[in-house]
């Protein structure tokens, strides 16, 4: 190699570009006359929109309504004596999240700190009871212990954590519902008392936990070689997708008893759960089918040529790839499901939005719609954004080796 060629072949660092703050502003906001005009217009518009909101927040808003009705909005009429069960669910969740964080997330210190400080701050409020304070502190303690465990024993615990997420969903239902049909220890809390944010969550959790496997089965069914299975799947998907959720909820609440032996009358919450699950499954099925279609035929052939059975090929090779592709679609459907739970108000269930209406009907709080609806909006946004965030992290975490 000649000396000149050797010189040229040496790798150079990429040209570095650094801006001062003023330089950045100039480059991005005022680079041309029309860019400058747009910047000024946007600033003016933001001011015009935000000013009345901020003025209202500072001078007029009355948050008494939320303080008085906070428990009602969160857990509705769930008996106070059994509230510890909700707390146990939250503490368990903190432990599993802590483990997950320790194993997969590591960093994100700011977010972690925010999540830990919130229960701590609440625990320091003077007005809450001692047991509540204990459970709130429990959230932080369990989360931190689990985080440490995840960091130290992460590799050995991976499978356990994945399973505990799956089990958790079903465990929550069990804990909230109770076991003992009579009086005394761990009694069943009738679903007529499930309401508020708790009901919204339970509908969402059950909806996701059951519609996901059902959706995958329907997607596989639609691609099945057996005509009967294919027709049933196609028929199901097309019928359900052609009907609004409200209609399905009405049908579930009025028609379901027809299919069951007389004497068994499933309660309203269960019917709503069935309706939401059936509805969501049809949409999930189409999303999953999109993922299945994106898998090249060579993958099926390679799996088959190695001697894997049809079931093994699907479970080990095809579905893991297909589901990863459709994470954004699945999460979009889960978010839609979460928001759609507000529709159960039409069959008389008091989820978060419905119970906020009953709060507003209290004579002393007439006229506090803004505060209450803003609060509800914030709750929905926080959880929807959280799901969206989890979806993005999952995509990055599972995308290893794909690029």
């Amino acid at each position: 190699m000649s000396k000149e060629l050797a010189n040229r072949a040496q790798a150079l660092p990429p040209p570095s570009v650094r801006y001062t703050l003023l330089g950045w502003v100039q480059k991005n906001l005022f680079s041309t006359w029309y860019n400058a005009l747009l910047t000024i217009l946007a600033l003016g518009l933001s001011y015009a929109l935000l000013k009345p909101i901020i003025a209202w927040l500072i001078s007029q808003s009355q948050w008494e309504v939320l303080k008085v009705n906070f428990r009602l909005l969160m857990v509705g009429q769930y008996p106070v004596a059994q509230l510890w069960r909700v707390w146990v669910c939250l503490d368990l969740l903190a432990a599993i999240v802590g483990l997950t964080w320790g194993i997969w997330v590591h960093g994100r210190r700011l977010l972690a700190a925010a999540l830990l400080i919130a229960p701590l701050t609440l625990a320091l409020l003077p007005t809450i009871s001692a047991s509540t304070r204990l459970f709130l502190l429990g959230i932080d303690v369990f989360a931190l212990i689990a985080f440490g465990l995840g960091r130290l024993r992460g590799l050995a615990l991976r499978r356990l954590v994945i399973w505990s997420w799956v089990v958790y969903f079903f465990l929550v239902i069990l804990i909230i519902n109770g076991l003992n049909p009579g009086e005394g220890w761990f009694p069943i809390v009738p679903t007529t008392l499930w309401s508020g944010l708790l009901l919204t969550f339970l509908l969402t959790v059950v909806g996701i936990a059951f519609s996901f496997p059902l959706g995958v089965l329907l997607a596989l069914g639609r691609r099945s070689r057996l005509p009967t299975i294919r027709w049933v799947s196609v028929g199901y998907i097309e019928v359900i997708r052609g009907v609004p959720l409200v209609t399905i909820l009405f049908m579930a609440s009025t028609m379901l008893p027809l299919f069951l032996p007389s004497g068994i009358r499933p309660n309203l919450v269960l019917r709503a759960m069935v309706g939401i699950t059936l509805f969501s499954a049809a949409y999930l099925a189409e999303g999953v089918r999109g993922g299945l279609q994106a898998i090249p035929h060579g993958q099926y052939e390679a799996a088959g040529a190695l001697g894997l059975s049809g079931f093994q090929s699907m479970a080990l090779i095809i579905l893991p790839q297909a589901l990863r592709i459709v994470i954004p679609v699945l999460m979009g459907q889960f978010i839609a499901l979460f928001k759609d739970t507000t529709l159960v108000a039409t069959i008389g269930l008091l989820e978060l939005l419905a119970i906020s209406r009953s709060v507003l009907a209290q004579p002393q709080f007439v006229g506090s719609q803004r505060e209450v609806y803003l609060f509800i909006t914030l709750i929905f946004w926080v959880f929807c954004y959280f799901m969206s965030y989890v979806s993005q992290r999952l995509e990055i975490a599972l995308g290893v080796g794909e690029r």
Partner: protein
Amino acid sequence: MSPIDDLQQTAIVGEQPIILCHDVHKWFGNFQALRGISMEVYKGEVIVIFGPSGSGKSTFIRTLNRLEEHQKGKIIIDGIELTHDVRNVEQIRMETGMVFQQFNLFPHLNVMQNISLAPIWVRKWPKEKAEEVARQLLDRVGIPEQADKFPAQLSGGQQQRVAIARALAMQPKIMLFDEPTSALDPEMIKEVLDVMIELARSGMTMLVVTHEMGFAKAVAHRMYFFDQGLIVESGTPDDIFIRPQEDRTKLFLSQILSH
């Protein structure tokens, strides 16, 4: 002494053919892809199949492990006849490894998992044994340091060598290669062929669809020239390269050897 003589002297030729095909026919819709292929392959033989595209050579090799279904004729692999019986198909697939033109590695699994998956789930080996065998195979194909990489992080040649290791991990009696070097850059063809030559010399029964005539000259015991779904001509590499009988064979060889 050339490697060919060396091999032909040491080739183990058994009594019963390990692959027996009789009058195999295959249609795609109305198009007839195979028009009566008969072939016998004995244990330890290396067979090279070549021919123009659309000649049915890939289709034929894919019927041998039921990736394509033959509609007429008989295929018997290691004493088991290929029928609609799923158990027979799975049994035969366990005994035959396949290497594809497009590698078809599993992109969501790393190299180690790609290789050890089938032994664990099909042969029911414990994970430790499967991974030990996988490590030996990675050594054999010359990339022991890539065990933790994902397929997308490897070059084409490395991917194809992993694919060979993956097929070998099932300890097959027969290896099928469907144009294993056609999707590779010229620089990488050699590294894959070297692995295949080593495999051939170790006594593996191999059916290779390829246009790499250097490979054929080095290790093939017999060659088959396919055209329009028929075997036009077959024989030892010397028969084919030095004394081809058919005009079609001569023409095709002159075209692929001319540059």
